């Protein structure tokens, strides 16, 4: 690349690198009192995933949440999800951090909020799902590829229990209903579980409302003003 071109493309280049590395774009720099955080691709946790995966790195997200919580200029967090799931403990860590923030957080599921994305979506004070967005609820599977992990049935069961308990205590869904969705047969071609689309997620009690960016921002502003 010619040097002058490089100079011209410097800004867009930085943006592109950030998209590749973190799956996040920078917001325009006019001061905003709301921070937007995107959780996209695979949620990367205890192991670095091979380069063909698009990932959200939890070790970067966690201190960002700390910064958002402690900065007096920031009044709220908009959490945008389009994730296929990922590391159980990294996902639960993000979900717990969001749920325990004193500042209002509103989540918006776009495209998909699958597997470990479900507890993250419900962790916010108020959650939205786009009309076309989907969420897959399924059991944590036994896979033989990761060697050295104690994947006994008991261990899987305990992991799953943590997810179920978190989702139930942070949304309107009951344990029975969530389990029923998780273990339903005949819905998914290659697995047991359920896919809920837009309004179905709201009807199940998982998500608070169907909506998009406008609704999510309006809700966040009203929560930031202390309204409910």
């Amino acid at each position, binding site marked *: 690349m010619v040097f002058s071109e490089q100079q011209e493309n410097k800004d867009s*280049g*930085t943006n592109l*690198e*950030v*998209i*590749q*590395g*973190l799956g*996040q774009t*920078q917001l325009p720099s006019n001061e905003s009192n709301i*921070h937007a955080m995107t959780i996209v691709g*695979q949620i990367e946790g205890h192991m*670095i*995933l*091979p*380069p*063909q*995966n698009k990932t959200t*790195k939890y*070790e*970067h997200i966690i*201190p*960002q949440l*700390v*910064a*958002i919580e*402690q*900065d007096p200029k920031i009044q709220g967090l908009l959490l945008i999800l389009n994730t*296929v*799931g*990922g*590391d*159980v*403990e990294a*996902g639960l860590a993000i979900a717990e951090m969001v749920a325990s923030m004193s500042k209002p957080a509103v989540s918006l599921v776009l495209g*998909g909020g*699958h*597997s*470990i994305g479900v507890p993250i979506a419900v962790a916010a004070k108020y959650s939205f799902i786009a009309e076309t967005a989907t969420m*897959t609820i*399924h059991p*944590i599977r036994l*896979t033989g*590829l*990761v060697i050295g*992990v104690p*994947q006994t049935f008991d261990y899987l069961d305990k*992991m799953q229990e943590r*997810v179920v308990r978190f989702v139930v205590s942070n949304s309107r869904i009951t344990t029975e209903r969530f389990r029923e969705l998780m273990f339903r047969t005949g819905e998914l071609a290659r697995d047991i579980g359920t896919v809920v689309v837009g309004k179905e997620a709201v009807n199940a009690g998982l998500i608070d409302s169907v909506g998009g960016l406008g609704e999510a921002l309006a809700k966040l502003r009203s929560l930031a003003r202390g309204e409910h």
Partner: protein
Amino acid sequence: MLYTIIPEEIILAELDKVPPLHEIAYRGRRLRVLPLPDGKYQIVQLLSTNPRDFLSPEFSPGRVI
């Protein structure tokens, strides 16, 4: 442990291609970086105890320095 709709064999297909990372000092912070063929580094992880650093695009993962 992974909880995802993507099959593990697809996620881990190129596990042998995960490159080794270096740790460097950059503007007073420690960074875990991926060395690039042109001698630059791509940020993989920021090691800092100042949460504000994590909101700065300067140290954002993916950035080439």
